[in-house]
């Protein structure tokens, strides 16, 4: 990483000053077996945005764990859903968490949504050498609050592995199971009664859990949702008031209702 000038409130500048860049780009002769594969998605519903992720991590055809949280609260008004290599993705989440809070505390104001969206794009670009090697690709989703409207409006963004960012109008999905999810979301968006944007919280949670159940039918790398084995998803909601977590107990209740 090139040496950056110290910028007020910029945590990456502070890391550079201490010679502690978050991503080091030594080339590897042999690619290790990667832990990856995922289904994460987000869609607008009546109260805001629901962001969901399965909890499975795989390495090749081996299931490493079914207890990974892929939807991460970055701060009180931002969510990140990670798809790709967890080692890199979790480090990106940690950099963003520290950077956003560092800026807010040092500059006495929160970072704007465009700046947050670009901060993630910058990390993806910094990770380009790992992406090109094929051992560190991360394709995340990001949700944040746009404070230029009143009340603040939740927005969803998706990225390509090189860092290009796109705002999603109704929904976005990423990971190996995302094809299935996108098809269903597209169908529901056009023909559903209710459409995702018209769903209340209960309907949106049920819909999200069933989407993951369906994705896991077609993608072995996506962990399913099974109340009988107490296997649930990571679900978080972003409203104009901030982030809320839908607990496993709540998911169980919503599925029953």
């Amino acid at each position: 990483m090139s040496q950056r000038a110290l910028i007020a409130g910029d945590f990456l500048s502070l890391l550079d000053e201490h010679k502690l860049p978050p991503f080091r780009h030594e080339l590897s002769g042999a690619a290790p077996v990667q832990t990856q594969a995922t289904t994460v998605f987000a869609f607008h519903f009546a109260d805001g945005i629901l962001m969901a992720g399965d909890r499975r991590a795989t390495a090749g055809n081996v299931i490493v764990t079914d207890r990974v949280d892929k939807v991460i609260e970055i701060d009180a008004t931002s969510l990140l859903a990670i798809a790709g290599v967890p080692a890199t993705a979790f480090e990106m989440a940690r950099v963003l968490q520290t950077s956003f809070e560092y800026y807010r505390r040092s500059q006495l104001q929160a970072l704007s949504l465009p700046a947050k969206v670009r901060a993630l794009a910058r990390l993806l670009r910094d990770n380009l050498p790992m992406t090109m090697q094929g051992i560190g690709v991360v394709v995340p989703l990001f949700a944040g609050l746009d404070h230029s409207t009143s009340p603040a409006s939740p927005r969803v963004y998706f990225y390509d592995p090189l860092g290009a960012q796109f705002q999603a109008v109704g929904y976005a999905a990423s990971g190996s199971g995302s094809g299935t999810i996108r098809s269903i979301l597209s169908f529901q968006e056009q023909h559903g009664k209710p459409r995702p944007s018209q769903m209340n919280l209960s309907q949106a949670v049920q819909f999200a859990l069933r989407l993951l159940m369906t994705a896991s039918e077609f993608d072995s790398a996506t962990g399913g949702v099974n109340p009988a084995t107490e296997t649930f998803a990571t679900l978080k909601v972003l409203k104009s008031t901030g982030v809320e977590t839908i607990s496993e107990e709540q998911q169980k209740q919503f599925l029953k209702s």
Partner: protein
Amino acid sequence: MTEEPYRWLEAVGNRREYVREQLKGGSPVLGASLPDGILLLGIGGGQSKVFELFDRHALAGLGHPADIEKIRQAAIDAAHMESFTRAPEDVSLRRLIGFGLSPQLKTNFEQIFSAPFLVELLLAEIGSSQEHDLFSRLHFDGSFQNQHGGIAVAASDADAESAATTWLTEANVPAKPRGQAAEFLLQAWWCLSANKSFAALPPEEERRNGWREAVRGKTVEIGWLARTTPRLARYQTLTLANLDL
């Protein structure tokens, strides 16, 4: 050559007097460890007295705004670097003060050809219970005192600071609900600002009216470190209306 140490001692003594003179009239800041969290309070001209430092840490101070700002920034830098390179749980007030801010302040104070920091500071760390809450009273020369729970005050006059702390402690403020505790802190702030003796305090009615009159046109800065929240960041800013005051 033999007189040089005496000149240095005299210069440091003069410097101490200069700093104390400059800090006279500074608006005091107060803190109370309560059952549900830590309350920090200061009255200033904007966002200038009470600040969030890190997830469980906050700072309140009086003095020159530029000097408070330098120390605030140094503390935020150190806390976030520690959090990122280790973990948020490793950021502790004891280490932040003892190995970071205090040595820097002492070095600065004793470098007699540079301007001293004009600050008196109160730092707080929320714990799992009142007994685990930590206040650190950090002085302009780098000296500091740590205490668990209770009441902490930072004022330009040490005797008045001690009297206010004693009065608030005897009033059992740490056992009171947040709104009532804030009322007591505001009364103590008014007594300190108006140079009222804590040995012969005005009646409660006068104290209540006194602070309300005195804060008119100023900003009451209230910081709250909540003991339990779903989020890592425990700090929030409160207003008098939030406290029904």
